[in-house]
């Protein structure tokens, strides 16, 4: 046998960057994590437009103009005007402000609640876990939308009640996700090493559990923002969400619906496009982040 003495590689092959995770995006998008960048640029454009809405839009989103109703796209009205003569482009841009703000804010609170809940439940297990998970079951027992709509109904219209309603319902998903991760982590030997080393439970949870379980929750949060956009738009579509003079994609679509038969597509199409654009962007970011944050053991 003439096999030469094989050197032991410093980094065993099984620890190198493994096969990329399967996703729905085509291969060229996943290379170099292009999806993360494309998603970031897409959502960045939307956020910038919303943030600098007064500069981006030349018209007021709320001032009616009876002389120019239901116009098609033109130079001065890029997306045309609605039935009251308001500039659709301005309304889409200002709509990004209200819709995106609530969507993002309504992710942070459930994320934090779910993280704490899941870590505590997964680490301690036993009767603590049982009680906490039964609490989560109670929330899950109701269909998501029914519960949100019921809560908004009780709390009244407006951004604040949408935020509270979404928080009350969607923390459960984070809690379950994090609990699962925490239960796996609990049996890792580095946790035993910390316990044997006299490291306090508080510190183990904060410094070892939180960073290790957060990855999955962060990735999920991206898709949750998409979900929130959907919820906010849907609520507004049903007249339950953001109060009318404030521009919002959902109410815009609802208003435009009755003019579709007359061939005026702009009122519905452009806010719908904004929703699709945002959702796509956030999905890209979520998938890209999942890849970027993936860490070898």
């Amino acid at each position, binding site marked *: 046998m003439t096999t030469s003495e094989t050197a032991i590689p410093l*980094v065993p092959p099984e620890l190198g960057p493994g096969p990329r995770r399967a996703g729905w995006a085509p291969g060229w998008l996943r290379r170099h994590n292009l999806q993360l960048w494309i998603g970031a640029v897409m959502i960045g454009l939307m956020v910038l437009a919303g943030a600098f809405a007064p500069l981006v839009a030349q018209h007021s989103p709320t001032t009616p103009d009876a002389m120019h109703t239901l116009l098609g796209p033109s130079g001065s009205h890029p997306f045309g005007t609605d039935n009251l003569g308001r500039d659709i482009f301005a309304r889409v841009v200002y709509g990004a402000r209200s819709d995106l703000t609530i969507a993002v804010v309504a992710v942070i609170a459930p994320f934090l609640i779910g993280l704490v809940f899941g870590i505590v439940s997964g680490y301690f297990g036993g009767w603590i876990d049982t009680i906490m998970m039964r609490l989560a079951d109670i929330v899950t027992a109701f269909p998501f939308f029914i519960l949100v709509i019921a809560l908004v109904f009780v709390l009244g219209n407006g951004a604040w009640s949408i935020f509270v309603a979404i928080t009350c319902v969607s923390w459960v998903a984070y809690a379950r996700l994090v609990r699962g991760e925490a239960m796996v982590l609990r049996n*890792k030997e*580095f946790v035993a*090493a910390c316990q044997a080393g006299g490291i306090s439970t508080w510190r183990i949870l904060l410094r070892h559990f939180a960073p*290790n379980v957060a990855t999955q929750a962060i990735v999920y949060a991206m898709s949750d923002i998409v979900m929130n956009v959907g919820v906010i738009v849907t609520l507004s579509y049903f007249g339950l969400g953001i109060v009318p003079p404030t521009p919002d994609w959902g109410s815009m679509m609802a208003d435009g619906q009755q003019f579709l038969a007359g061939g005026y597509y702009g009122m519905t199409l452009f806010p719908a496009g904004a929703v699709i654009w945002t959702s796509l962007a956030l999905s890209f970011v979520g998938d890209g982040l999942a890849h970027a944050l993936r860490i070898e053991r």
Partner: protein
Amino acid sequence: MSDDPLLRCSDVVVTFRQKQARTVLQAVTSASLDVGRGQIVGLVGESGSGKSTLARAVVGLQPIDSGSITFEGRTFGARRNRADRRGIQMVFQDPYGSLDPRMTIRGTLEEMLRRHTELRGKALDARCCELMEMVRLPASLLTSRPAGMSGGQRQRVAIARALSIKPRLLVADEPVAALDVSVQAGIVNLLSDLRDEVGLSILFISHDLSIVRTLCDRVSVIYRGKIVEERSCAELFEDPHDDYTKELLAAIPRLRGPRTEGLRDGSSLAF
């Protein structure tokens, strides 16, 4: 006082309650074990014989049902304080699970040092470098995370973490079982050197009898949760008393098959 061993386990019993079956599983049934100062004591037994459970009980990760664990003349209660924990540290079997993947090596070492010592700032840095040197790793690895490191390197870091707070006893639960043979030798030599350098006592758990034979001073054989034989290493391998020990020793593979004899005759392996 000096006659007392460093660690004495007397009639330790550990049971696990099984949820469904409503029966009680005795993982360790009355185990007694001594580890003297500066000694390396091997604990051998087959899978499921209770050796890991006994190890976890010694470190305080597993509550014991009866019996006592006495360390440096002090019998441990149900809860151990920081000073108790400082005396005994542990190295685990799986090098891939024993380090936090999100923490740098420096972070891992500093966490223990901050908890147990007054070292801060420059002195803390210096101690980290000293520990890396102790386990024969380059100090440049301090800034890296476990992801890029080999099993042997990780196990050395785990040893450094255990030694960071200067324990008198190191419990090593199958520390080389998951490693390549060439890497195993390095870790075994390191443990042996550390005993000589810092006077560390080691409770070395293994099912690999050849390693136990080279490393350990005394050996305890555990079978179904009971220590069946406890002798000096040389004696035990020469003249085993207990039937189970004989069986265990007979199970060591020997290179005395027909193939070797054939080679000795000068003929080559046919292929």
